């Protein structure tokens, strides 16, 4: 048995070489799969429903993949559409696909799989104790459900259902990256340990190459091993680079949890098959006793305005530890005076990040006694509305430019602002509000498949 899985790139919209995809097509894969999302860029995509990468970049990649699928007549599976895999993300990707189909005059059976989780469904499950926290998890209750956009991360089952229904192209909501690559080999009866370890290896495309790149790989899944080969003939994987990829963005490289079980790579053996390809054997898969679907949620925190500036005089930036608390007291008094009972002190936040003085690591900074040449200042105002955030920022930026510095007599400007006005409205800001798993009655019940003929 040999099942060939083509992973064209790490994420739709990141790009890949057209020549690499051409080579992939020549190798006649049984499926082309790619993910289109991640939580890595933060909670904004799920909170807002907007994709991280541009429509043009996604359209370029999707066009080449749809044409490749057309040439091969094999399934094209794309998951976590629109970065977050929310329903809006799926519809956004469907819109792009339909536009391409029109432009290229191509036809296919399209499956859309939606992963948004309705509040009523989650509340019922919460009452029945079917939602369990992962470690660590933020506080979770009905209030969090009501104020969050929540998606479930699907396994292979909803994808398999779409293939049963005759789908040529699947545009799925939030999905386990690995499930996209695993579903076809699972249906063809390959060994699950090999399937899931191979899927884990190729889910970031050519990221596991010696020189990581936005490009593609082929996984060949055979009876007692799988083999990984970059599509670009100049690119290489080595036993070390493939083994090391199990570390990437995972908390434990040996035990990787999926909805239907745990991928176990601890006893895998990595062997070079050429100077640019590797075979892997000995991977295991432990089926779960209880099927779980990871939930991801994003919640509006408020609206932000930021102010960016710099300070060159050490006498000024070394005084900030003492001056800023006093300035904040003044801000609170002034805000109370201006907005009275419309805005209480616990509804807004004024935060100074001093770059050069521990902004990146905060209280974990180990180097606290050197004096930098200059300090970057990022002031972030968070408030319940954009209007309040902007108004507070105008006050804060004005006062911050004229702080009283001990030892200096008279008025000086204490921050160099590069922009006029110095305030920049940032719009809504979000937080991740859920780190839980759901125990559904069936792997399909949380996901909604729809089909159209394009």
């Amino acid at each position, binding site marked *: 048995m040999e099942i060939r899985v083509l992973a064209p790139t790490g994420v739709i919209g990141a790009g890949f070489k057209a020549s690499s995809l051409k080579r992939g097509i020549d190798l006649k894969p049984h499926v082309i799969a790619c993910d289109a999302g991640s939580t890595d*860029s933060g909670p904004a995509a799920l909170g807002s429903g907007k994709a991280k990468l541009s429509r043009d970049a996604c359209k370029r990649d999707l066009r080449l993949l749809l044409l490749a699928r057309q040439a091969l007549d094999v399934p094209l599976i794309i998951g976590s559409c629109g970065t977050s895999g929310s329903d809006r993300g799926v519809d956004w990707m469907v819109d792009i696909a339909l536009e391409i189909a029109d432009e290229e005059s191509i036809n296919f059976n399209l499956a859309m799989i939606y992963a948004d989780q309705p509040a009523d469904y989650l509340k019922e499950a919460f009452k029945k104790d079917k939602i369990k926290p992962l470690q660590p998890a933020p506080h979770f209750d009905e209030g969090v459900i009501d104020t969050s956009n929540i998606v479930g991360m699907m396994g292979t089952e909803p994808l398999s259902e779409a293939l049963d229904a005759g789908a040529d192209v699947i545009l799925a909501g939030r999905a386990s990256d690995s499930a996209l690559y695993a579903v076809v080999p699972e249906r063809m009866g390959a060994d699950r340990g090999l399937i899931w370890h191979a899927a884990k290896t190729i889910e970031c495309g050519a990221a596991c190459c010696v020189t990581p790149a936005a490009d593609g790989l082929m996984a060949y899944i055979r009876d007692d091993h799988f083999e990984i080969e970059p599509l670009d003939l100049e690119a290489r994987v080595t036993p070390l680079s493939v083994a090391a990829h*199990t570390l990437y963005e995972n*908390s434990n*490289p040996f035990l990787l949890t999926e909805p239907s079980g745990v991928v176990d790579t601890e006893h895998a053996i990595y062997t070079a098959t050429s100077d640019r390809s590797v075979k892997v054997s000995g991977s295991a898969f432990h089926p779960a006793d209880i099927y779980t679907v990871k939930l991801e949620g994003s919640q509006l925190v408020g609206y932000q305005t930021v102010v960016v500036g710099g300070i060159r005089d050490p006498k000024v930036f070394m005084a900030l530890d003492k001056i800023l608390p006093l300035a904040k007291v003044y801000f609170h008094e002034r805000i109370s005076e201006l907005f009275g009972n419309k805005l209480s002190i616990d509804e807004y936040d004024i935060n100074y990040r001093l770059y050069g003085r521990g902004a990146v690591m*905060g*209280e974990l900074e180990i180097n606290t006694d050197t004096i930098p040449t200059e300090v970057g200042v990022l002031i*972030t105002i968070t408030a319940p509305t954009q209007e309040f955030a902007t108004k507070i920022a105008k006050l804060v930026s004005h006062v911050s430019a004229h702080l009283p510095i001990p030892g200096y007599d008279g008025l000086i400007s204490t921050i160099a602002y590069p922009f006029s006005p110095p305030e920049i409205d940032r719009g809504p800001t979000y937080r*991740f509000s859920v780190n839980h798993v759901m125990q559904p009655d069936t792997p399909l019940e949380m996901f909604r498949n729809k089909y159209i003929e394009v």
Partner: protein
Amino acid sequence: MTTIAQLCSLIRSKNAGPFVLTFDLMFTDQASYDRVRRTKPITKALLADLYKQQEDDITLVYHDQALAIKASFPRPVFQGEPRDSDCYGGQQYVPLMSIKVSD
């Protein structure tokens, strides 16, 4: 005195999801990896101290085939929270670089 950074080809930190921070230390060669495997300069106690964590919350794994050590623990600030200054968690590894390794 040798530091961890001198023995590594790559040290990185990264999100493992929005709530967990993970660190990968990739060693330059077998000898360097064997040296830290033997002398164990990175311990849960040290990580707990550097990152203000509970030892019980820390995962510490030696990956022989990848010539790598991996450590993971809950993010000190969850990704995207108003006080989070490192959305990708990518710049949190520097305190590990200067850890001393004995011969």
